[in-house]
C-alpha cells in the first residue's frame, strides 16, 4: 500500500472518529431540541445561541461528576464494559462508504476506510460484540437489577439480530455482494433498494431501533418500572460513554440503512446535475458526501421522531414481536425475493 494512501486512510479514520463523536454529541442536543419542539417546549436554549453549546456543557458536567465504583464490583470489568461498548459502536464506521473517489495529485483516494468484501458480515460481527459491553458492565456492577437489565438488553439485541440478518439476506440475494461499497455503487444509476425491498427495509428499520436500544425498545431507560437497565450503577463519564455510544450507534445504523437501502451517497440525477453545473469529479464526490450526511441526519431525526411518538414496549411484547412477527416476515421476504428473482430468470440459470 503506498504511503500516501496509508496516511490518507489514517487521516480518514481520525476524521470519521471525530465526526461520529461530533454527530453523536449534537444528536444529544438535537434529541432534546426535537423532543421539546414536539412537546411544544423550547428545549435547551441557554448555552450559546439556540443552546448549541449544550453538548459541551453536558460533557463537562459528565466529567465533573463524582466517579462511583460499587463497593464489591469487579473494577476491571466495570471499566471494560462501557469502553467495549464505545469501541464496538465506533468500529462499524470502517466499512461504510462515506463517499466516492477523490483524486488529488494523480492519486485516487477512496472515502472508505476499508472495502472488505464481507462488509455486512463484519458489521454483524461487530454489532454482536456490542452485547459484551452491556453484559460485562451489567454483571460487573454486582447489582441484581443491573444484571437483569443487562440480560434484558442483550437478549433483546440477540433476538433482533436474527431478524435483521435475515432481512439483509434478501437484499444480499439481489445485490450478489457483501461489500457495502458495491451495494452503494449498484444504486448509483438505478433505483434505491428500498423500492425493491420495502418489507426488508421495514424489518431492518425496526431491528435497528431494537439494536440501538432506542425508542419503543428502550427498556434500559425505564428507571421507574425496572430500576433502569445495565447502567444503573454507572455514574460520571462511564455512564456518559454508555449514553454516548447509543447515539453513535444511532448515527452508524442510520449510515448503514442509507447505504443499504437509500442509495448511500448517490442522489437522483447526479450525473445530469454534475454535468449541468460543470462539476469536477472531486466536486461531485464532496457533494455526494454531503448528501450522504444529509440522508443520515434525516434518519436520525426519524429515530427521534419515533422515540417521541411511540410508547415503550413491554418486554414480552418486544420478544414476541421479534420472534413471532419479524422473524417469519423476514423468512417470507427471503422466499418472495427468491421466487421473484427465479421468475425473472435472475437466478437458477447456472
Amino acid at each position, binding site marked *: 500500500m503506498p504511503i500516501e494512501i496509508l496516511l490518507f486512510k489514517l487521516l480518514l479514520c481520525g476524521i470519521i472518529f471525530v465526526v461520529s463523536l461530533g454527530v453523536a454529541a449534537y444528536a444529544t442536543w438535537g434529541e432534546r431540541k426535537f423532543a421539546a*419542539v*414536539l*412537546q*411544544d*417546549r*423550547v428545549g435547551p*436554549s441557554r448555552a450559546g445561541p439556540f443552546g448549541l453549546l449544550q453538548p459541551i456543557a453536558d460533557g463537562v458536567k459528565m466529567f465533573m461528576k463524582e466517579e462511583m465504583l460499587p463497593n464489591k464490583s469487579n473494577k476491571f470489568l466495570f471499566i471494560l464494559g462501557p469502553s467495549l461498548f464505545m469501541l464496538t459502536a465506533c468500529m462499524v464506521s470502517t466499512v461504510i462508504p462515506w463517499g466516492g473517489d477523490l483524486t488529488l495529485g494523480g492519486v485516487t483516494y477512496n472515502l472508505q476506510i476499508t472495502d472488505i468484501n464481507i462488509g455486512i458480515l463484519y458489521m454483524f460481527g461487530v454489532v454482536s460484540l456490542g452485547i459484551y459491553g452491556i453484559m460485562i458492565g451489567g454483571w460487573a456492577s454486582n447489582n441484581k437489577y443491573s444484571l437483569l437489565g443487562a440480560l434484558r438488553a442483550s437478549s433483546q439485541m440477540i433476538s433482533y439480530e436474527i431478524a435483521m440478518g435475515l432481512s439483509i439476506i434478501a437484499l444480499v440475494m439481489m445485490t450478489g455482494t457483501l461489500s457495502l461499497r458495491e451495494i452503494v455503487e449498484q444504486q448509483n444509476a438505478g433505483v434505491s433498494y428500498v423500492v425493491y425491498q420495502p418489507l426488508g427495509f421495514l424489518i431492518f428499520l425496526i431491528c435497528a431501533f431494537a439494536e440501538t436500544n432506542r425508542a419503543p425498545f428502550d427498556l434500559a431507560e425505564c428507571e421507574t418500572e425496572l430500576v433502569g437497565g445495565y447502567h444503573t450503577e454507572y455514574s460520571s463519564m462511564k455512564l456518559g460513554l454508555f449514553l454516548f455510544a447509543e447515539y453513535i450507534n444511532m448515527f452508524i445504523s442510520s449510515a448503514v440503512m442509507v447505504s443499504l437501502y437509500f442509495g448511500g451517497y448517490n442522489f437522483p440525477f447526479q450525473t445530469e446535475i454534475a454535468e449541468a453545473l460543470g462539476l469536477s469529479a472531486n466536486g461531485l464526490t464532496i457533494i455526494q458526501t454531503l448528501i450522504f450526511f444529509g440522508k443520515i441526519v434525516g434518519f436520525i431525526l426519524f429515530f427521534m*421522531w*419515533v422515540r*417521541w*411518538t*411511540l410508547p415503550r414496549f413491554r418486554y414480552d411484547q418486544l420478544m414476541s414481536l421479534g420472534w413471532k412477527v419479524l422473524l417469519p416476515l423476514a423468512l417470507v421476504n427471503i422466499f418472495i425475493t427468491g421466487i421473484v428473482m427465479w421468475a425473472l430468470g435472475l437466478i437458477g440459470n447456472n
Partner: protein
Amino acid sequence: MSLSNRSVVVSKKEMSWSERLYLPAILGGMAITIKHLFKRKPTIKYPEEVREIAPVYRGQHVLKRDEAGAERCTACGLCAVACPAEAITMESAERKKGEENLYREEKYARIYEINMLRCIFCGLCEEACPKEAIFLTDRIVPSSFTRGAEVYGKDKLVETLEQPVDVSARQRPEVLEFKQDKKHNHNQTHLDKKAVRRSGH
C-alpha cells in the same frame, strides 16, 4: 347519563387485521407529533421575557410614605388581624421628638415583618389598612436560599424616598371612595358605630 357526551364505552372486541398490523396507528401517532412541530410554543423565556401580568397584580408588599416622606404605618395591627395566613407581625414604638419627618403619627412600627413563605397574597392587609400604608405591588417576590431571607423586614418593605413605588393601579379613586363609605359595616370604626348608636337612640 353523560354530561359531556364524550365518554366512550370500552370494548374489547377483536382487532381487525389492519388494526393488528399497528402500522396505521403508528403513522397516525407520528402525524400527530409532527403537527406539534408547527405549533406555537407557550414557553416564556423568563429573564428576557416577562409574563404579562394584570395591573392590579398582587405581588410583593410595599409600605408607603406620605407626600412629605414620612412612614404612614401606625402599627395599628389591623393588617395582622386581617391576615388569614398570619404572615404579618409588628412591634410598635412611640415617636420621639425630632422624628416627625420620619413617622407621620405619634405611634409607628418599630418592627414590621411579613413572612413571604406564609403570605398568600390575598390583599386583605391592604383592604384592612386604615392609613393607606400597605399595598401589594406588581413586583414578584424573588426566591432565596434560606427561610430567614423570606421574612421581609422594614428594610425591604418600606419604599425608599429615591424610588417611590407607584401603587396608583391599586389605589384607585373608586377604591378609596369605597373604603371611606360608612354605609358598609366593615368600614365603620368604633367611633362611627358609637355615633350611629347615639343618633339612633
